[in-house]
């Protein structure tokens, strides 16, 4: 071959390579990722009752050690001071251990007749707001009702739940029943203001939180549309809440109303409000300034390092993989999920930011099925109590990952913020407000299609 032809081919090859390498990378769509792996590479394959309990499958050795310290603390039962072992419970509290409500790192249960355990708590406030724009605490009661107390102290109050049942019909004339709860505060230790607002909250599963914390703020805000500028009926509003460490208002991510900015603040608040354990973020007893406050200027009842261990524990609990994701009915259900536009708020895919300091959380493609934003859910689900920017009708879209494992992990199927829904289909049918059209869509489905939708949810 003459040399000029060789050169010609070489040039051709070079220019091809050059052109190819200059091409912009394609943006991968949702379908290009493996949706079985709900937690990206930090997904575990377990559908038993331990499904929520696993540490990240890829975790550096030193972090595993801290994870285990956090794990032991999460299980530990606290008792009242003074005690050699784990003192600090109360004087008023809701529960004596993290794991009493987040059983097996999973979901709590509402009060059911004849059963001793319940993991529902009540956030409370009166009209107005505190100095940071958050809920206005109730004089003598604070921001949460502690319905238990150590010996010698009175619980702030009891709460009774009664349900009234109401029948509704799907368009195919099959009926379904929803139970509407009423909460009545009784036996309060001092009289309670009449304008008190109460918000029932059930404990949520605690896995995957580190991944949710690692979604960038820009990404979350990209999906916000507070004034529904695109007129699709769905707004999506960011909550801005007080960050104690930062001393400013920041994006809220955690809790039923996105009222907490970070895992550590959510955990520290739970230690303080649920158990009465003081810590560096919440140094005052939960009954501070109340008549039952012991006025002792104690040290923190949990050390900073243990609180950080709990944070690491919660950051590195792995997400269970999906089951039956390629099942025909499940795929059909997924289609219905899309047609009903559930995905508009229960946003399937997110990405975590690049984080060199914490590679285990870095750059993961995850499927949490939430946008972490607030949405108006209509009057029937409303707690009528605002929480920073969240109105009485607004709730944060809860993640759906792992929801199909609830019965295996926690032995029940109670859903929504106060566990009023007794099954997934009831939970769907409770939706209103921005999700009204989605509910109407489901209401019009055939039995087979409804079942397919549920089967899809169960596969998450």
């Amino acid at each position, binding site marked *: 071959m003459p040399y000029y032809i060789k050169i010609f081919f070489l040039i051709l090859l070079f220019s091809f390579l050059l052109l190819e390498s200059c091409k912009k990378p394609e943006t991968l769509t949702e379908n290009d990722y493996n949706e079985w792996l709900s937690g990206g590479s930090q997904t575990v394959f*377990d*559908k*038993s*009752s*331990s499904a929520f309990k696993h540490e990240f499958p890829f975790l550096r050795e030193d972090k595993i050690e801290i994870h285990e310290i956090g794990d*032991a603390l999460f299980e530990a*039962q606290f*008792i*009242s001071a*003074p*005690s*050699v*072992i*784990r003192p600090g*419970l109360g004087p008023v509290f809701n529960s*004596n*251990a993290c794991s*009493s409500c987040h*059983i*097996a790192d999973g979901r709590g*249960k509402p009060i059911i007749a004849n*059963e*001793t*355990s319940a993991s529902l708590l009540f956030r409370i406030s009166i009209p107005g707001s505190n100095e940071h724009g958050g809920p206005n605490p109730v004089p003598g009661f604070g921001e949460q009702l502690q319905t*238990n*107390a*150590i*010996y*010698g102290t009175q619980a702030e109050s009891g709460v009774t739940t009664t349900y009234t049942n109401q029948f509704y019909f799907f368009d195919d004339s099959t009926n379904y029943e929803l139970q509407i709860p009423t909460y009545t505060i009784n036996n309060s230790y001092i009289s309670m203001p009449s304008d008190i607002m109460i918000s029932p909250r059930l404990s949520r599963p605690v896995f995957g939180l580190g991944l949710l914390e690692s979604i960038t703020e820009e990404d979350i805000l990209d999906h916000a549309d507070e004034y529904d500028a695109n007129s699709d009926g769905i707004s999506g509003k960011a909550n801005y809440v007080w960050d104690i460490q930062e001393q400013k208002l920041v994006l809220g991510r955690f809790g039923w109303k996105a009222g907490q900015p970070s895992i550590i603040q959510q955990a520290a608040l739970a230690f303080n409000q649920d158990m009465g354990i003081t810590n560096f973020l919440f140094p005052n007893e939960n009954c501070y300034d109340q008549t039952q406050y012991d006025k002792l200027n104690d040290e923190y009842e949990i050390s900073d390092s243990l609180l950080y261990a709990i944070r690491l524990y919660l950051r590195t609990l792995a997400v269970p993989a999906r089951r039956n994701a390629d099942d025909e009915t499940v795929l059909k259900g997924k289609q219905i999920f899309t047609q009903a536009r559930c995905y508009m708020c229960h946003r399937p895919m997110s990405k975590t930011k690049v984080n060199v300091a914490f590679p285990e959380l870095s750059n993961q493609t995850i499927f949490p099925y939430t946008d972490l934003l607030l949405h108006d859910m209509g009057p029937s689900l409303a707690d009528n109590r605002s929480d920073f920017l969240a109105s009485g009708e607004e709730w944060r879209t809860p993640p759906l990952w792992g929801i199909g494992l609830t*019965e*295996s992990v*926690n*032995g*029940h199927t109670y859903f929504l913020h106060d566990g009023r829904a007794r099954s997934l289909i009831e939970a769907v049918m409770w939706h209103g407000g921005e999700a009204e059209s989605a509910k109407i869509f489901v209401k019009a489905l055939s039995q087979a299609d409804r079942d397919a939708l549920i089967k899809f949810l169960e596969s998450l």
Partner: protein
Amino acid sequence: MKSYKYLCSLAIAILITITSCKKPDTSQTTDTPSTTTEILTAFSNNVVQATYNDLNTQTNLLYSDVLVFESSLSDNDLISCKQVWRDARSAWEQGEGFLIGPVEFNNIDPQIDTWPVDFTKLDSVLNGYSVYTTTYIDSLQDALKGFHAIEYLLFGKNGNKTAAEFTSRELDFLKALSFDLNTLTTELADSWNENTNDNYYTKFINAGNGSSVYDTQRLAYEELVNAMAGICDEVANGKIAEPFLSIDPSLEESPFAFNSITDFTNNIRSVQNVYLGSYTKDGKGLEDLVRQYNLSLDSDMKTKINTAIASLQNITVPFGQAITEQPTQVQNAMDAVNDLKTEIEDELLPFIQQHTN
């Protein structure tokens, strides 16, 4: 002769070819589902129900013995109360190898076996004036109730309490706590009773056959085996390691009755019970599935269970003392239990995953 040899070789070759072409025997895979179903049912009857019913009988007996002791105040009756406490404790600890279902879902475990006990407040309760009604007991926090609070009342701080040392308030409280314990164990026994509503027995034995919790039998088996490994982990790396590694006897779980080593041993017996499918009565168990395919795994499991039990029994002084006086034995026991845990996780688990559907 030569041709005869050839003929023979040919015949053998043909025979081998024919045999090797035979379809593999499928009888094993067809009878497996029935074996695996039988084992689940037998386990639920002979291990879970038997253990929980025994526990419930013992706590009931504890309550009635406390009543007898209350009227006689004799040291002999106190001794029988202490013995029944140990018997009830034995049943409970032998249930910890299968902490699955309602005992976990309904938080029954932390109520029956709360630890630590809040001694300061317990003394306050005893020095107070409240009548120990059921409502009152229900209003008390968990740390004042359950096995260990009863242990403290029965055995006293130094483990040698006599009948004469009991105050009437202590007797009343003991009575109320025994009654409360019995209520909880009844709830537990009922939760696996096939005749109660929403019972776990039905969900468990119907694994892979319409159970709402276990869509496959394999899942139920994994649950069982994980629970076995779980209690080994708890014994080795929690109950033993925490007081031992921090050399802190105050972290011991059953210090007043000097019962900790017995507790640990019964936990490993619980693993054995699940494996063999026996409590008071022997029936089909995991071993029957294992023996069908892998005798060496069966023998390893049994050896490791026995070694763990034996090494715990080598500790001859109460655990609180042993952590300083017999550290070698304690270390050996911890290692043996961890060894059993590894065997369960690395050998038994993959085995059952392979042999169940």
